């Protein structure tokens, strides 16, 4: 075999791979569409099999549950896949290079934007934090990145869009993004470098290693999407089921009058309470949004509900524990206080104008 035939062979293999992937993708999309269109008949059918009256509390709760579980899982799969493919064009190393070259005020919104687009797992938070800070990226910009990532995740936005509607999703996007950029800027102004753990402060501009250049073709990117679905949906489905179960209980049993009293937006303490309750609660966006859907359905005020959701998603105890390796307690407390204030302001603003 000479070189030419080897290349021709390689080309053909590539084409076969492309066709195979293209065909399976179309088939999966069609199956997805069919499943999605059958959600209501499916849930009504399941509920009718059970020995409960459809219009009883239990019937309402069960119908909500068997409708929402497949719906959320279908939406989640699609969103995670699309996000995985999109994010394959970004990497923390590239993001660092961009941010390190951007010292102006523009750095904060840019960091928030890249926080949304850059794939990173919370298990690499610490190397990422050190890598950013030691490359001379200001602490505030690093925080803007770290806040935006979980808060404005595509999973959360996509589910909000699918379950609650595009208006709420858009409001959430704009305010989540703003809170990340502004909180980063505020922390940048506070000159908090002295509250890093000693050993982190002593690291001066380490070498910015060049990111290894790996060639990705479109099939590789689709593969990244599939891997992400397997990993993320495989991990969060249990949270989703749990969240929907709570949402179903709220939907079926909580009287609207009571909800209006607690979360209706008239009581001055409802937004602060929602934020405080949300901090120690740990679930991901996929688990909390079905709860949000049910709360809004029962007449909870938008500001209060958004504040609760942001607090649950953006401020989580496990992440604080990971970051404890590089931050002092004082800095963690400031971080929580600044982000919580931003969320509080958003919640109060919304209750006031709507």
């Amino acid at each position, binding site marked *: 075999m000479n070189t030419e035939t080897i290349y021709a062979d390689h080309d053909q293999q590539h084409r076969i791979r492309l066709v195979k992937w293209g065909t399976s993708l179309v088939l999966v999309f069609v199956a997805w569409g069919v499943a999605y269109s059958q959600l209501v008949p499916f849930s009504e059918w399941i509920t009718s099999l059970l020995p409960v009256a459809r219009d009883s509390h239990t019937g309402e709760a069960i119908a909500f549950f068997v409708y929402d579980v497949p719906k959320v899982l279908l939406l989640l799969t699609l969103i995670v896949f699309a996000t995985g493919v999109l994010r394959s064009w970004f990497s923390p*190393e590239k993001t660092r290079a961009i941010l390190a070259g951007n010292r102006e005020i523009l750095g904060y919104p840019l960091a928030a934007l890249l926080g949304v687009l850059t*794939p990173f797992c919370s298990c690499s938070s*610490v190397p990422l934090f050190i*890598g950013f800070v030691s490359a001379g990226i200001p602490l505030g910009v690093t925080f803007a990145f770290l806040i935006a990532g979980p808060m404005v995740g595509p999973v959360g936005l996509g589910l909000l869009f699918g379950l609650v509607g595009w208006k709420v999703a858009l409001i959430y996007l704009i305010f989540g993004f703003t809170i990340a950029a502004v909180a980063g800027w505020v922390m940048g102004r506070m000159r908090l470098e002295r509250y890093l753990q000693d050993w982190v402060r002593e690291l001066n501009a380490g*070498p910015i*290693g060049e990111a290894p250049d790996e060639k990705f073709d479109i099939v590789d990117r689709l593969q990244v999407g599939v891997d992400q679905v397997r990993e993320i949906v495989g991990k969060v489905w249990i949270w989703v089921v749990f969240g929907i179960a709570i949402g179903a209980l709220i939907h079926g049993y909580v009287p609207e009058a009571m909800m209006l009293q607690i979360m209706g937006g008239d009581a001055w303490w409802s937004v602060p309470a929602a934020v405080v309750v949300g901090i120690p609660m740990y679930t991901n966006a996929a688990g909390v949004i079905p709860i949000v859907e049910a709360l809004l359905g029962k007449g909870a005020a938008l500001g209060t509900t958004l504040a609760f959701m942001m607090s649950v998603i953006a401020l989580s105890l496990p992440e604080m524990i990971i970051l404890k390796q590089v931050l002092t307690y004082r800095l963690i407390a400031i971080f929580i206080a600044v982000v919580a204030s931003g969320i509080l302001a958003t919640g109060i603003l919304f209750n006031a104008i709507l």
Partner: protein
Amino acid sequence: MKTVKVYGPGCKRCDMTEALVKDAAAKIGVAVEIEKITDPKSIAMAGVISTPGISIDGKLVHTGGLPKEDALEKWLQG
């Protein structure tokens, strides 16, 4: 003998990466010595900010996520 360093704080994917390196090396018959770097400071100082990362004989070849098998073989041969 090639020295392979696998960078990662000890998550599941880091262990999987180590296993992948071992398999690939055995498959193409390259002797390797694998060292796992788990200390976050050393990881970051090596230029790795998304884990797992892999370096071969001091050169960083991969960061973030599991490596592809064929790419791994190419790096080990190179």
